[in-house]
């Protein structure tokens, strides 16, 4: 991706995300409080984050790839189940990824 395209993506997405916040402060509450709207908005983050976990952890280009990232995810899940703070989870996953890289040489 060229630098111009990258900058455009950064600026457009930033302005878009800001306008989404501003829209909430500005629209009549009744518009957004429709039950089906509320339900979709409630579920979008989980679906999106799950898709991102899967794609970032298990794919490379158009292939499914198993490597240190999956080991990192497993360690992160264990840490989260034990209620470790975010930064500890991240550090453990990173250390696991680096460890697998070193072991796999």
């Amino acid at each position, binding site marked *: 991706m060229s630098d111009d395209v990258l900058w455009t993506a950064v600026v457009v997405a930033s302005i878009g995300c800001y306008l989404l916040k501003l829209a909430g402060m500005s629209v009549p509450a009744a518009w957004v409080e429709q039950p089906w709207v509320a339900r979709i908005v409630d579920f979008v983050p*989980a679906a999106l984050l799950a898709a991102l976990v899967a794609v970032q952890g298990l794919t490379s280009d158009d292939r499914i790839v198993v490597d240190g990232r999956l080991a990192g995810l497993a360690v992160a899940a264990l840490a989260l189940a034990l209620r470790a703070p975010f930064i500890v989870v*991240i550090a453990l996953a990173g250390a696991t990824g680096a460890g697998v890289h070193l072991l796999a040489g």
Partner: protein
Amino acid sequence: MSAPARSRTLRDAVGLGLAVGFYGIAFGAASDAAGLDVWQTMTLSLLMFSGASQFALVGVIGAGGSAPAAVGSALLLGTRNTVYGVRMAPLLAPRTVLGRAGAAHWVIDESTAMAVAAPGRELGRLAFWATGGTIYLGWNAMTLVGALGASGLGGAAEAALDAVVPAAFLALLWPRLTAAGSTEPRAQRRVTLGGAVVALALTPFVPVGVQVIAAVVAVALAGRPRTAERPA
């Protein structure tokens, strides 16, 4: 409002803000690993200022996805701030257009949660501004540290960063699957499984990043009919 209640609200808000701001270091490092320069990374933290959307944008770009797919993922995650804004508008009741524009920038998960949890409107406002302000400063400072610190790392460090991004998404997702973080943890788990399965299944067939958006649309459409039957 009483002085002890006020200082307790301030202490909680600033404490949470500092802790959350610290995650900025993970974002700065992930953004650098995805190929964004320091200025682009800082533009995201200063202007977009919504952690999950920022991670989504750099995650899709880092995976080789197209700009529209990256922007689309960030915007999809940004929609929940719209709902927070609806909830915050009567509480903050900004009197001027400028006040509204300023308040909107800090409407994120944590500032909304702290404001809603605070007892009473005055404390709610205080919690919103204190949490939002602390996170804004901490998040941007730590983003810079992460972005600068990550440049020029070797292979093992890059492997570490590769593992950090999916783990960060998992950590953002996790509270939504527990009874403490969601009113419908079981439905959220079904949504999670659906999103992951659809995204992986589509990966060989669509451009990078598109499967993420397709998964969200598929799950949202699948979830919609049930809402009609469910009493509000």
